[in-house]
């Protein structure tokens, strides 16, 4: 049995009823800060009465209330529903009143909280299973669902410390019910206590005190005293146990060599903490009912990248083997890229007064091949693709290096402000430039293109920038367009009116089109000559082109631009990547004038959600 769906209405940022599908094993919830990830986790904790949370009072802030709206609306109640699936025969029996009459393998649990307090200042809660609130509610059945939560800012040292209710104590208590170790442990401590009391020093100390008492009070009034090392109750014994660590696995090391956890690194302490919790979850396996849910917020906390990947792989494996349902929230691209895309839920908040949009990546319609490709690509690049508010897809490293610089100029011009060019950046708009290393637009667009239908795509704008790629010898210019050979361009028509995906293209190739725009040719020739190591005919030719370029006709300019492109593309002379590095460095200098080709400008503004004005008010700059 596992939670297959969570339905939230009116709780925190979830104003409208929102369905959140969850996987049987691992679900990874991705989203930027404030997108509602924690609200999802807290909703599950609240309805399942998770230990550290269940008894916490509900406050008024838990009810959805409007933001920036003068009406100041506030919900009069909120509901949280859990739908369980995959009930086996035993579970159908145990959760009988919770069952869905039309599908006995599924059950439900509901929580409704009214925004009205009673005389003790508590909000009225109703909790029921199944479709009818009047059927019996058995608390033992309810409590058999185990929900464990690991908070995002874990103080592992504190949690593992020898105190009441420490993780270690909880683990041992759970194991005890099977092992009957209670008496055995108590006996050992009692025995040790006795041995200690026989020691000369302690006997002497005790007698000293006792004699003083008798002296001062006299035999009739004095009390008897004794000394004890520690309490002999099982609960007290295990509370006094603490974990120690040794940096290496070595069975020969004696206990004295082990160190206190306070000497350990934060990351490793967190792993020890997680290991204790996972061991505790495993202990329940032999119980007859074992629905276990583990909620982890930001498992990446305090861990370096390789450990993050390793940890998540382990959790995924554990979830599969021991049947624990694990729900993880994360900001880490490393974790996002190391799990199966089918396990990922993307949470996006588009409007502050509406519920966040939940997009399970298994529903966006990726073909197996597209999924495989994206998975491999994510694994290699550890990309921020799934965390962005806007995406610009490019084909190669050259575009990837230059476009962020061009974007600063585009934003500077568009926003018409007196600030410096370097004050603008794509980061401000949370837009990522994604280098696909090829023309795989279809796979990437698939993530976004169906977003108009709730949950079928990530509702952010994704602009692709591609080359027209005519025949190699072609030299197109305005008024002399050439036939395109790029198979990706058929997408341009398909996506023409798509709300979330657009594909922008040029007349030939990135560098070629840059060169034909405004006076860019001069800047680019300078860049090229800086890289060029020889002083021969190539250098002379380009010095000449530089002087004559402005006076040339469009068709001649096109030929010269082609000449430059060929030289840049020649890996022996320069190479596109190296050229792009140098060009980007030049563009960082605000005094150098550079015109951004129209297709790139459009793509950038569209991805930043600024397009509406640009198409009508801002004059275009393409060509001459």
């Amino acid at each position, binding site marked *: 049995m596992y939670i297959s769906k969570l339905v939230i209405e009116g709780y925190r940022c979830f104003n409208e009823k929102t369905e959140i599908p969850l996987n049987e094993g691992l679900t990874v919830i991705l989203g930027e800060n404030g997108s509602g990830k924690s609200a999802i986790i807290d909703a599950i904790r609240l309805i399942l009465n998770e230990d550290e949370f269940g008894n916490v009072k509900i406050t008024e802030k838990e009810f959805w209330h409007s933001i920036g709206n003068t009406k100041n609306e506030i919900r009069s109640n909120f509901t949280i*529903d859990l739908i369980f699936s995959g009930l086996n025969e*035993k*579970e159908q*029996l*145990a959760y*009988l*009143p*919770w*069952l869905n*009459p*039309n599908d006995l393998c599924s059950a439900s649990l*509901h929580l409704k909280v009214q925004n009205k307090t009673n005389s003790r200042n508590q909000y009225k809660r109703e909790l*029921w299973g*199944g*479709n*009818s*609130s*009047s*059927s*019996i509610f*058995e*608390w*033992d*059945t309810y409590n*058999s669902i185990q929900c464990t939560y690991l908070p995002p800012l874990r103080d592992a040292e504190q949690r593992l410390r020898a105190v009441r209710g420490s993780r270690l104590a909880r683990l041992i208590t759970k194991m005890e019910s099977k092992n009957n170790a209670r008496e055995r442990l108590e006996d050992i401590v009692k025995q040790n206590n006795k041995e200690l009391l026989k020691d000369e020093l302690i006997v002497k100390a005790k007698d000293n005190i006792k004699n003083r008492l008798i002296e001062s009070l006299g035999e009739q009034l004095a009390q008897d005293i004794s000394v004890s090392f520690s309490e002999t109750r099982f609960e007290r014994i295990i509370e006094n146990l603490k974990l120690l660590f040794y940096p290496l696995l070595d069975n020969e090391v004696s206990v004295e060599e082990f160190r206190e956890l306070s000497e350990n690194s934060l990351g490793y302490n967190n792993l020890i903490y997680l290991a204790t919790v996972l061991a505790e979850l495993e202990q329940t396996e032999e*119980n*007859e*009912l074992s629905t276990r849910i583990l909620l982890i917020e930001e498992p990446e906390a305090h861990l370096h990248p390789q450990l993050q990947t390793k940890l998540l792989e382990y959790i995924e494996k554990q979830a599969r083997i021991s049947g624990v349902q694990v729900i993880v929230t994360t900001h880490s691209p490393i974790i996002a890229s190391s799990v199966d895309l089918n396990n990922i839920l993307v949470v996006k908040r588009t409007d502050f007064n509406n519920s966040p949009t939940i997009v399970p990546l298994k529903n966006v319609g990726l073909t197996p091949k597209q999924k495989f490709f994206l998975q491999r690509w994510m694994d290699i690049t550890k990309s921020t693709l799934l965390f962005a508010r806007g995406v610009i897809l490019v084909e190669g490293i050259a575009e990837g290096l230059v476009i962020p610089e061009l974007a600063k100029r585009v934003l500077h011009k568009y926003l018409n402000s007196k600030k410096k060019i370097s004050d603008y950046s794509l980061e401000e708009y949370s837009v990522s430039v994604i280098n696909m290393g090829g023309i795989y637009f279809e796979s990437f667009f698939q993530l976004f293109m169906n977003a108009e239908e709730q949950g079928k795509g990530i509702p952010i704008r994704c602009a692709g920038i591609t080359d027209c790629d005519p025949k190699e010898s072609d030299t197109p210019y305005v008024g002399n367009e050439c036939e395109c050979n790029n198979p990706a361009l058929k997408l341009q028509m398909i996506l023409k009116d798509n709300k979330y995906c657009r594909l922008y293209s040029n007349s030939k190739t990135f560098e070629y089109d840059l060169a034909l725009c405004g006076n860019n040719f001069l800047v680019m020739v300078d860049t090229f000559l800086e890289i060029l190591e020889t002083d021969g005919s190539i250098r002379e030719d380009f010095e000449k082109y530089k002087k004559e370029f402005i006076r040339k006709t469009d068709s001649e300019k096109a030929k010269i631009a082609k000449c430059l492109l060929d030289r840049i593309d020649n890996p022996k002379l320069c190479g596109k990547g190296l050229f792009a590095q140098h060009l980007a460095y030049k563009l960082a200098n605000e005094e150098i004038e550079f015109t951004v080709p129209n297709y790139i400008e459009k793509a950038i503004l569209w991805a930043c959600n600024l397009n509406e004005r640009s198409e009508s008010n801002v004059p275009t700059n393409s060509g001459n």
Partner: protein
Amino acid sequence: MKGVKVMYQQILEIKPINKLDLIYSVLNNEDIKRLSPEQATFILHPINRDCFLSACPGSGKTHSVGIKIAYEIQNWISKISGIAVLSFTKNAAEEIKNRANRFLGNLNVSHPHFVGTIDSWLHSYIFHPFGSVVTRYKGAEGDVSHKLIQDGNHGTWLKN
């Protein structure tokens, strides 16, 4: 079922005095020793076989049922299925529960077992969770509980 038959045969063959010892070993209460041989036979009757207990008023039927429940609960292993003890009145259910508790020491008659009236059992486990399948009642706000007095709608099932 073959195993059960053999066991049943074995119980019939136990001498009356040994039957009391067997029950006493489980419940550890001096009252056990005062049970009649018939009562002991009833208590040891296998729980998965039907049994009809008939006797005159005041002969100790409720007493026997109380001990029987305590005996079965003490031996109970499953945490998901339990014994349903159904009566016709709340008072009778309460009485049986109290008596069983008296013999159970620090255990209590509680989940997964049920002691109550036949009506409340039907309401809790059958009618409310699944009644809507038969009555086709759509419910309000996702709740299909049948209530006698409902706003504007008295439930078509009432007319039948």
